[in-house]
């Protein structure tokens, strides 16, 4: 089940999706973190962010919208408390990085260069913050700039997390690769909106939110396929994975690893079930190693 991402070996290809698993502490009551390929943390910024007003979440058919707004305690608390916590487990640590500006992304990456973390995931695709986030992911020039700058200061390999809210994902994937990104991950959430027809108002305080969950899975598979077939760097696939079969589709579409987010909300053991399910699939299909089902289409 081992896979390699930018020179880093993972014991299996299943990781948490950023923002759905905190820094692992809360879910460690349900899940043995040492069973996971990697823990990807909630986005962390140079100073604490308070995020958006509530309501921040709303259920939609087979999915949900969220507009958390990247609330996080800031890099200092994160380094003092969350990294030592995660170090107790035999898993890889991937830190999701966010910022309002180029400088802020670089400051976080620089601060993390001394820390025992394995990879950085640069979130240029959050639809829920006004400045930064998605703005960097949608403009190819800004995207190229941020990859170049972060790459300069980062000691660990970097993953660029792409937004699906673009017309051409191939172009964004190539731009990230050209500037030296070590891997890309996708998809972040799709921007959506929910209206309360009785109150005649928006359900979310932020008006719009990011759609995640099983309803986005086919879109995610298509985008992972397109991205994986336009670059040579590894791709981490995510979006609506809730059972092993969904993860296997992603791997076949071209992902070297997968992340599971919203599914953990419904079933805190989803990650473990997906890992076991992939293993069973390989056994039942007589597949020797996981590489034999990656990018087979």
């Amino acid at each position, binding site marked *: 089940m081992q896979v390699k991402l930018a020179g880093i070996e993972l014991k299996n290809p299943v990781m948490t999706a950023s*923002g*759905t*698993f*905190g820094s692992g502490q*809360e*879910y460690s*009551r*349900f899940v043995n973190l040492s069973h996971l390929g990697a823990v990807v943390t*909630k986005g962390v910024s140079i100073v*604490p*962010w*308070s*995020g958006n007003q*509530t*309501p*921040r*979440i*709303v*259920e939609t*058919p*087979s*999915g*949900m919208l*969220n507009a*958390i707004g990247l*609330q996080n*305690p*800031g890099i200092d*608390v994160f380094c003092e408390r969350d990294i030592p916590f995660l170090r107790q487990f035999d898993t890889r640590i991937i830190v999701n990085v966010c910022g309002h500006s180029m400088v802020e992304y670089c400051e976080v990456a620089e601060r993390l260069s001394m820390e025992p973390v394995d990879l950085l995931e640069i979130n240029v695709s959050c639809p829920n913050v006004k400045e930064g986030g998605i703005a960097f992911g949608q403009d190819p020039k800004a995207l190229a700039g941020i990859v170049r700058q972060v790459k300069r200061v980062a000691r660990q390999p970097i993953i660029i997390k792409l937004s699906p809210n673009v017309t051409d994902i191939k172009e964004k994937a190539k731009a990230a690769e050209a500037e030296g990104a070590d891997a890309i991950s996708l998809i972040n959430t799709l921007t959506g909106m929910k209206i309360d027809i009785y109150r005649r108002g928006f359900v979310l305080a932020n008006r719009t939110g990011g759609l995640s*969950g*099983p309803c986005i899975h086919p879109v995610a598979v298509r985008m992972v396929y397109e991205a994986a077939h336009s670059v040579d760097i590894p791709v981490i696939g995510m979006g609506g994975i809730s059972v092993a079969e969904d993860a296997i589709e992603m791997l076949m579409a071209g992902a070297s690893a997968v992340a599971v987010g*919203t599914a*953990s*909300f*419904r*079933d*805190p*053991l989803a990650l473990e079930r997906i890992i076991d399910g992939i293993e069973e699939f390989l056994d039942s299909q007589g597949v020797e190693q996981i590489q034999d089902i990656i990018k087979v289409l």
Partner: protein
Amino acid sequence: MMLKESCTVLSLDEIEEDIYSMWLSSQAIAEEARPGQFVNVYSRDRSRLLPRPISICETDPAQGCFRLVFRVAGAGTREFASLQAGAHTNALDVIGPLGNGFPLAEEKGKRVLLVGGGIGIPPMLSCAKVLQEDAMAVLGYRSRAFLQEEFPQACPVFIATEDGSSGSKGTVIDAIRENSLTADVIFACGPKPMLRAVSAWAAKEGIPCFVSLEERMACGIGACLGCVCDSNTLDRHLNVCKKRVCLEGPVFLSTEVKL
């Protein structure tokens, strides 16, 4: 380790129009739950992903079961209300007990005023059963009362209805004034406007007031930050002025949060 449990629906009764009382099996929840804690109940329909938080109304550790009282508010609660009791095929997935609950142990020996509004009354019943003669309850309804006859003998109950059909006409505040009630501490659960009014009254009287808040939840265990409320002080864990209703709450000191 905590588990998502599949709980058999032991009984289900409509106790008032659109208000249901449900007993579910779970030895662990029956033994561990404290008044004011809640469980997250998952829909059997896989297209409804998110949990429905419902307060624990009562527990029966001897029988290994616990009780929920809920109002049909949408598709999820309508589904729960349509289940068949007894049949094992009608089990519900539940995670709990969750949250902090009311500070019964800390406030032991004090005279507690329990204030419940509408569907905020069920957790007040569980408080009353523990506190007995230390408690007094004020229950506010729109019109028809429910659960009021289940409060223990030892606990005086005052009722307010908006239409005046029973008890004081008006809100819980009207009932408190009419009956000149006072206490050492207040526990309140109900709609936001009621919580605001009760905590304003409590502040004026100099009585500490604990309120139970509602917010939409995704993970229910503190990981997603979907359910936060604004707090007046920096939260030690979050490092911003917010608190997680599912973990630091749902019960807060009224001066600790922005209502």
